[in-house]
């Protein structure tokens, strides 16, 4: 997958000892985006027990929506983000209703193949509608940076915004899941759907809400991602999507703090290997991490072992 536009240097590296710190902060910024995407994977996996392969492509759609809102219709940034969220949420729920819901009782193989079909469909529709040539996304906070230590170090504002957004999302989501009625229903469904149904929980509605939240988060992630790497193209979402899934597995799939920790670690690993090993091989290194994690601790850092019912 060609990165059509070269990554702008978000951190200006000046001081010697500051170099590592700068890469680290950029890594955390990238990791925060992964964490937000990973949350979508993790929540859906926790409740619907399926790998929503099309999640990355929802990000792509969100990026196009935000791009057109900003560049073509000159909407303010907040409106563009809200519009992207609205479109992605609708899309997520629609996908779930049309493609996944009829397969609730099917084997995981069937569901996965369907999800891949949906992913492929979205990518190729985007290519047909908007062509495969990348479009330049203008960052929602501009390309300005915060300068620290008498100019020895500078951090792009978008990086700061991304990290803050990620932390806010984590806190709000944790509170939502633990303290609201819908959150309780979600936890119940992830434990045992049949029992939840007997307790009067509307399982279908709960799954729809989960998809809606996950897709809304994907929209936010898309704007943050494209503000950092400013090009929009049809396969934009597949790489971050797969990496975020890696992050979710890394942290322990189904766990919210797991998605956060996994995302951050993955972003840091990716950015440090870009800086110190090789830009071309950074993807290979990230995926090697996935394989090593599965080899050592298949349930991830914060995951729990699930016993199969016999």
């Amino acid at each position, binding site marked *: 997958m060609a990165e059509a536009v070269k990554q702008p240097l978000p951190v200006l590296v000046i001081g010697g000892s500051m170099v590592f710190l700068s890469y680290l902060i950029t890594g955390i910024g990238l990791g925060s985006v992964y964490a937000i995407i990973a949350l979508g994977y993790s929540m859906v996996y926790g409740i619907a027990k399926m790998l929503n392969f099309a999640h990355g492509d929802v990000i792509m759609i969100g990026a196009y929506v935000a791009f057109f809102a900003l560049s073509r219709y000159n909407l303010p940034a907040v409106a563009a983000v809200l519009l992207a969220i609205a479109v992605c949420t609708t899309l997520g729920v629609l996908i779930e209703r049309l493609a996944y819901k009829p397969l609730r009782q099917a084997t995981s193989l*069937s569901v996965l193949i369907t999800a891949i079909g949906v992913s492929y469909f979205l990518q190729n529709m985007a290519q047909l509608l908007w062509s495969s040539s990348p479009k330049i996304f203008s960052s929602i906070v501009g390309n300005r940076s915060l300068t620290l230590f008498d100019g020895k170090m500078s951090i792009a504002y978008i990086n700061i915004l991304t990290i803050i957004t990620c932390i806010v999302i984590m806190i709000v989501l944790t509170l939502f899941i633990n303290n609201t009625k819908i959150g309780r229903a979600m936890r119940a469904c992830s434990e045992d759907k049949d029992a939840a149904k007997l307790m009067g929980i509307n399982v279908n509605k709960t799954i729809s809400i989960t998809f809606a939240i996950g897709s809304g988060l994907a929209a936010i992630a898309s704007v943050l991602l494209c503000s950092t790497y400013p090009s929009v193209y049809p396969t934009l979402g597949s790489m971050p999507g*797969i990496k975020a899934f890696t992050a979710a597995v890394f942290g322990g799939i189904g766990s919210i703090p797991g998605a956060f920790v996994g995302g951050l670690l993955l972003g840091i690993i990716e950015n440090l290997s870009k800086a110190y090993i090789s830009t071309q091989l950074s993807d290979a290194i990230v995926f090697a991490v996935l394989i090593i994690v599965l080899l050592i601790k298949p349930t991830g850092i914060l995951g729990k072992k699930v016993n*199969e019912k016999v």
Partner: protein
Amino acid sequence: MKKSNLLNKLFDKQHKKQTVSYLIVIFAYVILEALLKTGNISSLFKNLLVPCTCYIVAALALNLCVGLSGELSLGHAGFMSIGAFTAVCLSGLLAGTLTNAVLRLVIVIIIGAAVSAFFGFLIGIPVLKLQGDYLAIVTLAFCQIIVSLINNVYFGFDEKGLQFSFIENKLNLSSSGKILIGGPIGASGTQRISTFTVGIVLIIISLIVIYNLMDSRNGRAIMAARDNRIAALSVGIDVTRTKMLAFVISAALAGAAGALYGLNFSTLTPAKFGFNQSILLLVYVVLGGLGNITGTIISASVLYVLPELLRSFESYRMIIYSLVLIGIMLISNNKFFKEKLAELKTRRFNRTHSKEAE
């Protein structure tokens, strides 16, 4: 009914199903060879024949993994690329010493398959212990790793010996030297030694391997592990080992297909074996029917040749493929459709039963 009669009846039924596949392949070969000999075939179509056999073999390999073993692999293009680049390099190295092209082709296909099988084994170790969707994502990751590694490899030789460098092209070859893999450019100047006949032989070998495997002790274990993991364990089947066996054989066949594919083109870039190729193989398998060998052969050949002949259809092709994937899954899991199928089964059950009672 007597025991020997029962046995014979059973074997007849199994063999009938398999013979059809072999006959289709041989029949297609005879007709196409006749057309080739008499020159009644367009050059465009002629060029499609060898790649088509490669895709059939790769799709059969994937069906062994997805349909028969029940594990979704999204990295079979990666195994093809391993086979392809192994074969291209070896063929380049052996060109001077082994002048018989067919013999060289056979040897490099076997080695390509072996190398690919070895990688299948390595990938299988962490993944096959797990259940669920992990194999899909890890094989996908593996495919990306392989493609990005090959993208960064520079490999060549001259009279001083082999030269190898990574990430940057530091090869310092003499004028008589030859670059075998040139990073993102891939392999170029490959001698095209693949033939349609070898492709057909490879399909037949794949059929023999898959059919005979599935009709033997290990093949039954593979399907048992797919159908019910706990029950398979309870009758003493080592599920991990069994799944590994299917995965390694599948990787070997995909590697062989890749080797044949690589030696059919004078240039070959790593980008040819991306995620899209894996999806394409999956479409062949799903449309042909999971676990259905004859179906895979037919769907792979039709789906490979048709779009190549109808270029104008190109931009819609992928959209149609994705809809095919979704549609087949939705229909085959549809309650109404399933009930009808079950009804059909019971009717057949009752019919054979009443016949035997008479």
